[in-house]
């Protein structure tokens, strides 16, 4: 009877993966993590996969993930020649990088040349084996798994990912690229990357986290990244998602900010069949500010769900949020922007914007701002738009001799560029621009015009 229920919930294969992993890690992992894993897998087993009856998952149906039997990815970290990365969007940014192949660190593909010694950039698996105390105060302490089955699953199955630790007062000029590659073609695999980024006080760092599928395989990425930002530190985080068009991608970015810290995030979703991006930020010190940005550019039957949760826990914090979506063909999207202002978080200043451009009659977006304000001296605004290309603007451009296709492409590019221009790292902005030019029907003409 119990077995039947479990099968229906689809959690069984993951429970086996967990048991298998436990065997492999026997005697090789710190007891504190062992305990957390056990709690997390039990939570996952209790919660099961979310259904659309749950408010948080109302417009995103994860049944295809539940129904697919994924296997843990094999460990073959050196199974890819570096040349394979040439020409892939986001794969070949010229900056220090840690590369993970199907979730496992690949020393061969990684290069940290140019990084100062004051920043530690390592494989988490290595750190857990050699120096687990370094990560103990933070790993799994920020991304809550009690109510989130995917975070629970990731937590239970932590194996590898990146650890970045920037020491006090250090300014790291070069972006650090964390590159997650999937080579899944025929094999149906699941990976659960786990990243921890610790940024000490008065320091500064830029992280680029990208997920790229090399083949058109069906696979499942279930990633969690925790960023802990100490007082007066500055962090730029870019997440670029160009997974296979058949891939499932569930990601949680959990940010904890201390006093006077500043965080800017950018989430670009281009690939994947089913994607859920969660960005949760806790502004937990006075004078902290954060700026969340996102662009989703989807077509076919792609589905992208962006969930953001901004928690103003302390007074005098500012937050800005701008997400823009371009949906073509039968693509569907969700934007759910939640802002919580805790009691006492006075002088909160928060502004949220979500704009959507629907390029076809079949594309669909559900956008939902959600403000929960428990303080009385705050400024919170939100605005969401859903629209098509402005016919007036289109006509105006055409009366100047610009053909319809180019005019459309120019307007779509302009729409996207309002958020793309917020990218401070030239390497990333150029890559994204290039992608846009290749995506747009008259992109090469737009590129020439610009």
């Amino acid at each position, binding site marked *: 009877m119990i077995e039947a229920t479990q099968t229906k919930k689809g959690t069984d294969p993951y429970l086996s993966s967990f048991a298998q992993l436990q065997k492999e890690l026997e005697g090789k992992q710190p007891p504190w993590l062992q305990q957390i894993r056990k709690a997390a897998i039990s939570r996952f087993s209790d919660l099961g996969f979310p259904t659309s009856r749950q408010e948080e998952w109302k417009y995103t149906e994860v049944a295809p993930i539940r129904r697919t039997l994924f296997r843990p990815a094999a460990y073959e970290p050196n199974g890819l020649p570096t040349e394979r990365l040439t020409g892939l969007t986001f794969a070949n940014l010229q900056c220090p990088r840690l590369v993970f192949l199907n979730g496992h660190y690949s020393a061969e593909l990684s290069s940290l040349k140019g990084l100062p010694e004051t920043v530690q950039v390592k494989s988490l698996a290595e750190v857990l084996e050699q120096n687990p105390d370094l990560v103990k105060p933070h790993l799994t302490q920020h991304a809550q798994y009690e109510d989130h089955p995917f975070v629970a699953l990731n937590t239970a199955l932590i194996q590898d990912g990146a650890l970045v630790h920037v020491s006090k007062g250090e300014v790291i000029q070069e972006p650090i690229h964390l590159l997650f590659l999937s080579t899944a073609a025929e094999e149906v695999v699941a990976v659960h990357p786990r990243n921890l980024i610790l940024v000490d006080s008065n320091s500064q760092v830029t992280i680029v986290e990208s997920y790229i599928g090399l083949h058109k395989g069906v696979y499942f990425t279930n990633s969690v990244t925790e960023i802990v930002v100490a007082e007066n530190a500055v962090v730029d985080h870019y997440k670029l998602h160009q997974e296979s068009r058949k891939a499932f991608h569930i990601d949680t970015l959990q940010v904890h900010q201390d006093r006077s810290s500043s965080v800017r995030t950018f989430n670009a979703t281009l690939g994947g069949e089913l994607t859920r991006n969660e960005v949760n930020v806790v502004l937990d010190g006075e004078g902290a500010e954060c700026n969340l940005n996102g662009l989703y550019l989807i077509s076919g039957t792609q589905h992208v769900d962006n969930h953001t949760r901004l928690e103003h826990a302390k007074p005098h914090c500012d937050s800005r949020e701008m997400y823009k979506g371009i949906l073509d063909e039968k693509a569907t999207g969700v934007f759910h922007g939640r802002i919580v202002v805790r009691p006492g978080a006075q002088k909160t200043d928060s502004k949220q914007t979500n704009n959507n451009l629907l390029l076809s009659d079949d594309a669909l977006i559900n956008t939902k701002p959600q403000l929960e304000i428990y303080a009385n001296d705050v400024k919170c605004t939100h605005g969401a738009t859903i629209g098509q290309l402005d016919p007036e603007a289109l006509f105006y451009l055409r009366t100047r001799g*610009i053909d319809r296709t180019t005019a459309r492409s120019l307007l779509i590019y302009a729409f996207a560029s309002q958020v793309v221009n917020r990218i401070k790292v030239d390497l990333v902005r150029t890559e994204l621009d290039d992608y846009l030019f290749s995506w747009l029907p008259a992109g090469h003409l737009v590129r020439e*015009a610009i």
Partner: protein
Amino acid sequence: MLEIKNLHVKADGKEILRGVDLKVNAGEVHSIMGPNGSGKSTLAQVIAGRESYEITDGEVIYQGKDLLEMAPEDRARQGIFLAFQYPVEIPGVSNTYFLKAALNALRKERGEEEVDAMDFLALIKEKMKLLGMDETLISRPVNEGFSGGEKKRNEIFQMVVLEPKLAILDETDSGLDIDALKIVAAGVNSLRSPERSFIVVTHYQRMLNYIVPDAVHVLYEGRIVKSGGKELALELEEKGYTWLEDKTAAAVNS
């Protein structure tokens, strides 16, 4: 250059133009005047190719070709330019990019080489000077945050860069102070030539002091009810459009 014959146009099921006839020869400046709602802007937009109007009858021949069969961009490439009454704001598209794309589309059509960035910059600097435009406007998004006067001036700026064969000015003078008006007129006059024609749609006679027309037509309730020389504009200014209403009423009654 342009010949409009018995043009009937509907918008939202309502007949706006009810048989317009107009002939504009190369090198001529024609002014179309009339009260609000007489169909002036509709006529301008139909020539430029707005697709939301329904042409129920008549024809428009431009340089021997059926204009109504052509897409707006093709009309532009054949030398038609409309200075909009309400120029559209296009966030995210800079004036420079936009105008360079437009100019190159036109040059390509004419079999000329595309201008490179340097030559283009030199060209627009010269034209901006001519129109007394603030150089910062060019790097800003098209019309975004421009004042009413800046938008109108930007239309004329585009016109002098694109050098059309037939330019239609749709109430470009409305809302301009006298200095801005003189600048706009100077821009138009700098382009006047035996090969180029203008249709100046206006509500007021004032601009015609600076852009002297060869002919003035009065559009009223979707028809051209009176045509004459530049004196007609003065007469209208003096007597007002009610004079026409009385006349039309008298004509209908008789």
